[in-house]
């Protein structure tokens, strides 16, 4: 019961904050509500017993990535007239219709007979062979044992991204 109440609370928070991101005119309000959205989403992750990912979500997304966004918004310092008129064109209507249709299809598939109603397992009783489900030990084992190559490639990707960001933003070296 508590789980259901928390889920609906966090879900409403995620959707309201996410809607603020795309409907607010000033990007700084959008960035701040995106931080709120990520915090609510971390709560949803805890409900899914993904404790490590929830902490990573707060540290990497709400911490590092959003600081970068806020920093760039402050750096550009857009005036009210530079934000531009939001025009409403036929292409936007078509795009919105495509979005609604695809979400309808996805939800219809998800609500279909794919899940015949599995027996409920409480999150606290979820254990793997290596510690609690979603804990540091269990997830770390998967990352370092069965996906070492993606892990190393990711580290290379981050290095390339750091160099690329500096080169692109700097203009002249």
């Amino acid at each position, binding site marked *: 019961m508590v789980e259901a109440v928390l889920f609906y609370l966090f879900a409403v928070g995620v959707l309201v904050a996410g809607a603020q991101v795309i409907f607010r005119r000033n990007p700084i309000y*959008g960035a701040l509500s995106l931080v709120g959205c990520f915090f609510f*989403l971390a709560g949803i992750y805890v409900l899914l017993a993904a404790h490590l990912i929830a902490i990573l979500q707060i540290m990497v997304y709400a911490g590092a990535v959003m600081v970068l966004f806020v920093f760039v918004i402050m750096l*550009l310092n857009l005036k009210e007239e530079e934000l531009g008129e939001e025009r409403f064109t036929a292409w936007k209507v078509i795009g919105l219709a495509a979005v609604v249709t695809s979400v309808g299809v996805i939800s219809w598939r998800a609500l279909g007979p794919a899940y015949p109603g599995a027996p409920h397992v409480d999150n606290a009783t979820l254990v793997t062979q290596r510690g609690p489900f979603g804990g540091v030990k269990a997830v770390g084992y998967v990352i370092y044992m069965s996906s070492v190559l993606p892990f190393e490639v990711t580290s290379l990707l981050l290095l390339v991204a750091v160099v690329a960001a500096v080169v692109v933003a700097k203009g002249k070296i």
Partner: protein
Amino acid sequence: MDFFHQHQAQHYLVLASLLFALGAAGVVLRRNAIIVLMSIELMLNAVNLTFLAFSRFPLVPNSPMGSFLSGHAAVFFVIATAAAEAAVGLAIIIAVFRSRTSVNVDEFDTLKL
């Protein structure tokens, strides 16, 4: 068993699809490049949510718990890639703003035929 626990996986999947819709609508509707990037982050988070939902509620019945933790590993890599994407994307926005003094994606039409 109440309604939420009976259809727990569906709750998470529908929430993820709604969040993805918000992100996609942001990319389609908004012309501000920074908000377009933030909408892409929303879509990536929706994908993360489906990964975790399928990891917690696997489709294969009677499977040992923990054999689907690779979903968590996938989310880990998506978070790292999203951080790299945000850094490069914001650098591109700054570079374009320097030459065009605008972040309106409608005005970035040099490559248009």
